[in-house]
């Protein structure tokens, strides 16, 4: 079959715009020197040694933790939503999916600022709460606010792939299961969910990965009291100017995520699907 030829243009693209920059990043990661003078770097492993110290480990663990929780929440919220939308009739279905995406077309910073207006101590939610006679809540500048920001921003990336897989499940299989006397829950667990697993894995990838490296959400909604790994990487590139350390942290993060995703794709029974890692 000659179908694989279709990928050749993109392979070329990958080579130029992904592989070469990756080599550059590796070069940065294994050297030190003034990041802006490319000729004068010295080989060094210091960047990696520096990362494997308790401070950075603590930050890494915290980031993994938050990214994991937010992925689980997005999956729990997103799967039923994808299922509901996929059961609608086609015209309404497309409309609902678009309505799911449109909020994301407003600038990220503006949306996050709007959350500040909602969640602040004198924000709209607390105003409502105090109106009905309850005590105001502390909604801002903690991990819960960071999680909310992550779930809010990444939810569509969970719903979309699951939805697109669900729409194409053979209705015959579902009917067959029901004819054979399976309850609706059994049908879901034994038929629908297993058939949608590749979409779920794509969704998990698209949520977990940006959640691992985000910095704006933790900075605006978390109040910067505790950094995430994304904040520290950003700081190296955009403030400290140490591209070497920033690159090596990114490489470590990359390897870490690849391993995690590799493990996740083990759940994909035949590894041909969306995950496709290892």
């Amino acid at each position, binding site marked *: 079959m*000659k*179908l*694989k030829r*279709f*990928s050749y*243009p993109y392979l070329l*693209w*990958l080579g130029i715009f992904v592989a070469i*920059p*990756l080599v*550059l*990043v590796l070069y940065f990661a294994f050297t030190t020197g003034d990041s802006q003078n*490319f000729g004068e770097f010295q080989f060094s492993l210091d960047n990696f040694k520096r990362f494997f110290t308790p401070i950075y480990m603590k930050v890494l663990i915290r980031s993994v933790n938050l990214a994991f929780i937010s992925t689980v929440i997005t999956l729990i*919220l997103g799967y*039923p*939503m994808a299922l*509901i939308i996929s059961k609608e009739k086609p*015209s309404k279905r497309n*409309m609902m*999916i*678009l*309505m*799911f995406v*449109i909020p*994301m*077309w*407003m*600038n990220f*910073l*503006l949306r*996050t600022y*709007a959350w500040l*207006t*909602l969640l602040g101590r004198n924000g*709209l939610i607390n105003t409502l709460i105090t109106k009905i006679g309850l005590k105001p809540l502390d909604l801002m500048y903690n991990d819960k606010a960071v999680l909310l920001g992550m779930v*809010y921003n990444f*939810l569509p990336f969970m719903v*979309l*792939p699951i*939805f*697109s*897989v669900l729409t*194409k499940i053979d209705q015959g299989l579902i009917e067959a299961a029901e004819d054979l006397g399976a309850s609706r829950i059994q049908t879901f667990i034994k038929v629908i969910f297993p058939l949608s697993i*590749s*979409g779920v894995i*794509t969704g998990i990838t*698209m949520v977990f990965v940006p959640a691992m*490296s985000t*910095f704006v959400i933790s900075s605006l909604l978390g109040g910067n009291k505790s950094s995430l790994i*994304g904040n520290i990487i950003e700081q190296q*590139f*955009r403030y400290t100017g140490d591209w070497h350390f*920033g*690159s090596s942290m990114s490489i470590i*993060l990359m390897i870490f995520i690849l391993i995690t*995703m590799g493990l996740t794709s083990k759940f994909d029974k035949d590894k*041909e699907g*969306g995950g*496709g*890692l290892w």
Partner: protein
Amino acid sequence: MVEKSIKRIYTFLIFMFLYAPIIVLIIFSFNNSKSRGVWNGFTLKWYIELFKDREILKALYNTLLIAISSSIISTILGTFAAIGIYNMNGIFKKIILNLNYLPVLNPDILTAVSLMALFRFSKLEFGLFTMLLSHITFCVPYVILSILPKLKQMNIYLYEAAMDLGATPFYALRKVIIPQIMPGIITGGLMAFTLSIDDFVISFFNTGHGVSNLSIAIYSMARRGINPVINALSTLMFISMLILLFTINKRNDKDLIEGGR
């Protein structure tokens, strides 16, 4: 019946969650104050200023141009790539897939500076073109990721059957494969558009010569506080999207009814 209302309520709550900040943003575009914190009375002045603001309108134009062209190009490139990759085997396929993951895995800032270094070495002039190249680079992987699960669902024998019946590969592709993976292509394209319209870091480091998009304009306003003109613009963009969506939908409904007769 109970199930139906549970579904309704759930859908309502999720959409409420998605739209709450948007509603706040819209309300504050009518706020007679430059700061976000307080409500100072109703005004339309930001809308009037918006139409006088050449820079913001130009940024809007660039944003849409880049988002539309990069999402179309990356959807096409990504669709072919996904079909090709799906039909590969062995270690090569794994390497390609993992390489394809990199722009998704890397923090934006890393993608941004590594592309910047690449463009600098290749002596390209920074501007619209370099920005477009970088947007395509980070959009394609998402397109591929959303199409692969659809390919897996597809019945591959249909394609082979078409070939056996004498279809050319391109004809079979167009008539058999593409229709089956269409939902994946559409979600991939939507994601590409969404990512492109929202990107700041990669755009910032890979543009030049007076070309900027809305994200760059917004983020660089941050030190002084975001000008509410931006809120007004977002409101207008949002409303025109909604109107467009509803008219397309209305027309589709009508087409369906008429087609049925």
